[in-house]
């Protein structure tokens, strides 16, 4: 049995934040869950996916976040408890649904989880999704710890049902990817079947209906504010004339900082876990007890601006500090010492910074950027395109996935990356206004997510570029989740369709479509050359399974290669052009690590001396 289905209330378990969140949802009786994978949220859906195989919980990997939210919104409006989770930028994709779903509300409890990523450990931006609560008018809860993340989940579902509105649940990477000891709670029964009762004047958002629903939303916000005033997740700690208002993980650093500075008798803390709509009365009362207040929040000054507005309305003149150059930045994530220093500076408390040794005499330590794996098909495809485009002036728009790593030298095969699916769309613009050859790259999962619309646009508007679809048979970057093109029988799972990328591309009307096997180097280069010479939109589908995925499926059969020292003349094309991590230099000679070599044989095909040969069995 899956450990998160354990039915023994009170038992202690060491859980990853994302596992604790999944457990919280199960304790809340969630019956329906949908997602598009994205770090740092991925292990929540992985846990629910695993549990759905051995219970009546319904779980699906949807095509993208917008679809995932639509799927869950319908389930919730049929009275079933539903959850939809995604990374912060995923909510941009789903925002169209979110904004009007707020008007419509829900019947069964619905939680929409957004996993923000301050410092961008694995994201293209560090947007603060608390603004989505303000923008949509939906209630927002945000835990400070792993334990609280679990506790807050049943609360969020109950709150959603009580208000008839979806609840936004915001985490940050340091919640998702922290571990702590969690005490299991009771499991609530899942109600998996619902019913939808027609009521077009409540559910069909035409202008006349929406005008009424907006009124309803504002009334719901008032009710939500009352809930926030009495929420156990809006808590106060300590006594004194100095006040700290904080949220999320900042609370941990603030609480530790106040203790470390020995100022527990001087500082009172208001931690807001239910932070939209804000409990205005609670905040007013808190401010009334303080002479000076410091707002500690990662990201944007969301609380700071709101608290200042509340103070102004109440005629309170006390200083309220937050994002200033000498205190806190809007950039990146906070840490305990930074917050301790901020508290000391704000309130004039003597403070000695931790003594970091002088590291100015350290030698340069070689960087260790993540690289494409040994046996990664993307490397082979990039090589083929690079060779085929030799002599041409090119622009390479790319997309979000492992293949983005190809932007680093020596591959240098990504020039412009914004967001999921943008390679196809941006290729349209580049090809129209420049005279360069535009070759765009997109992964299979990203193609389904949002690349298809860009390709349709290209065919309709008669743009001129080549789209290379890197089809490695899985959503590799986030941990090998399925997508609509995946063969689910490989995972021993039945009851799934399978969409052919080639059929989709042909149906869109692309005239020049070629499927290549990138490990066949010569043939691939020829095929790409033809595609590049085609006037109009051409598509290359490069098919080869992700090497890590093949390993997990036990499908890997390749034999490692070695360098024959008698034949090698040390041209080093292999290392210089491919940069495969299986290569290393020993006494200035190229060697291949047989433990890492995948046996893709790409290097063997480009060696001018044919010096790379299979290891004898």
């Amino acid at each position, binding site marked *: 049995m899956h450990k998160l289905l354990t039915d023994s209330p009170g038992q*202690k378990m*060491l859980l990853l934040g994302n596992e604790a969140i999944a457990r919280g949802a199960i304790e809340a009786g969630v019956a329906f869950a949908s997602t598009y994978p994205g*770090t*740092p949220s991925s292990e929540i859906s992985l846990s629910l996916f695993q549990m759905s195989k051995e219970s009546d919980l319904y779980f699906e990997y949807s095509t993208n976040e917008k679809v995932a939210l639509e799927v869950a919104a319908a389930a919730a409006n049929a009275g079933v408890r539903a959850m939809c989770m995604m990374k912060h930028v995923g909510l941009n994709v789903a925002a169209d649904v979110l904004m009007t779903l707020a008007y419509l509300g829900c019947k069964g409890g619905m939680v929409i989880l957004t996993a923000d990523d301050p410092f961008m*450990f*694995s994201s293209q931006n560090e947007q603060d999704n608390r603004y989505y609560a303000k923008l949509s008018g939906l209630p927002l809860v945000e835990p*400070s*710890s*792993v334990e609280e993340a679990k506790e807050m989940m049943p609360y969020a579902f109950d709150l959603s049902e009580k208000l008839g509105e979806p609840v936004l649940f915001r985490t940050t*990477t*340091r919640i998702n*990817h*922290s*571990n*702590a*000891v969690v005490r299991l709670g009771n499991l609530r029964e899942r109600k998996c079947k619902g019913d939808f009762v027609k009521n077009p004047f409540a559910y069909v958002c035409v202008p006349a209906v929406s005008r009424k629903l907006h009124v309803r939303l504002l009334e719901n916000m008032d009710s939500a504010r009352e809930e926030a005033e009495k929420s156990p997740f809006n808590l106060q700690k300590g006594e004194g004339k100095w006040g700290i208002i904080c949220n999320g*993980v900042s*609370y*941990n*650093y603030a*609480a*530790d900082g106040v203790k470390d500075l020995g100022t527990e008798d001087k500082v009172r803390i208001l931690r807001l876990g239910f932070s939209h709509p804000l409990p205005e009365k609670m905040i007013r009362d808190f401010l009334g007890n303080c002479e000076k207040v410091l707002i500690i929040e990662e990201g944007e000054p969301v609380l700071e601006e709101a608290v200042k507005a509340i103070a102004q309305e109440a005629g309170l003149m006390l200083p309220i500090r937050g994002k200033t150059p000498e205190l806190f930045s809007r950039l990146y994530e906070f*840490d*305990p*010492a*930074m917050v301790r220093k901020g508290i000391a500076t704000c309130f004039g408390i003597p403070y000695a*910074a*931790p*003594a*970091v*040794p*002088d*590291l100015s*005499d*350290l*030698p*340069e*330590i*070689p*960087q*260790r*950027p*993540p*690289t*494409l*794996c040994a046996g990664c098909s993307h490397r082979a495809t990039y090589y083929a395109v690079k060779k085929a485009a030799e002599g041409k002036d090119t622009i390479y728009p790319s997309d979000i996935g*492992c293949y983005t*790593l190809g932007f680093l030298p*020596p591959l240098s095969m990504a020039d412009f990356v914004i967001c999921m699916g943008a390679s196809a769309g941006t290729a349209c613009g580049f090809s129209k206004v420049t005279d360069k050859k535009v070759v765009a790259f997109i992964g299979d999962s990203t193609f389904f997510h949002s690349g298809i619309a860009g390709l349709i646009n290209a065919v309709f508007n008669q743009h001129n570029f080549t789209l290379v679809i890197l089809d490695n048979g899985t959503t590799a970057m986030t941990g090998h989740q399925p997508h609509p093109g995946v063969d689910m029988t490989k995972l021993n799972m039945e009851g799934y369709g399978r969409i052919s990328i080639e059929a989709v591309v042909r149906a869109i009307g692309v005239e020049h479509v070629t499927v290549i096997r990138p490990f066949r180097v010569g043939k691939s280069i020829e095929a790409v050359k033809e595609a590049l010479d085609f006037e109009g939109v051409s598509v290359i589908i490069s098919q080869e399974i992700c090497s*890590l995925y093949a390993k997990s499926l036990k499908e890997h059969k390749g034999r490692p290669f070695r360098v024959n020292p008698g034949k090698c003349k040390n041209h080093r094309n292999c*290392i*210089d052009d491919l*940069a495969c*991590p299986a*290569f*290393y*230099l020993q006494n200035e000679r190229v060697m291949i690590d047989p433990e890492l070599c995948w046996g893709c044989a790409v290097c063997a095909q480009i060696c001018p001396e044919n010096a790379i040969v299979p290891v004898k069995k």
Partner: protein
Amino acid sequence: MDITRLIIVAVGGQGNLLASRVIGETALLSDVPVRMSEIHGMAQRGGVVESAIVFGDAESTIISDGEADLLVGFEPSETLRALNKCNGRTTVISNLSPLSPFTVTIGKAVYPKLSQIQELIRAKTGRLIAFDARELAEKAGNVMAVNMVLVGAMAQTGILPLTVENFKEAIRTKTKKAFADINLKAFDLGFAEAEKAG
């Protein structure tokens, strides 16, 4: 209870996360409050994996620069890179078996000398325990057991508020059964090696 802060740095694939998990489970067995955070994006693609483990009465799950009581590096250049987490009293444990970053393998960067790495760490921290953990892991029966060798060395320092018995119990129950004996042997070898360091 007093707060103890441990940082572990490793290269993806070295088993850092399993080591952290074993330490966390040991704390759970010992009824010691524990919070851990990990940055493991792209771990399988050769990047750096960092775990922060905080024992005792603290709310934070991360560790600021200069505040680690114990730094454990699974790879020598990564130990050096993480020195910003140390202060003059920090104990450092480092594996001495290098994994060349790809920038070094292709001749674009130079790997610092092992002797220089050790001198620098000694000069800037309280104490350095350094040895070839890969060799000991091989001796234990599996090169992948580098993580358990280093957990053994951590246990020997006595800096963590955890007992050897509980460490062994966690290894027995929380690592794969097929590897439990090798892991326990690796733990003992790491413990003995740290003892030798005096």
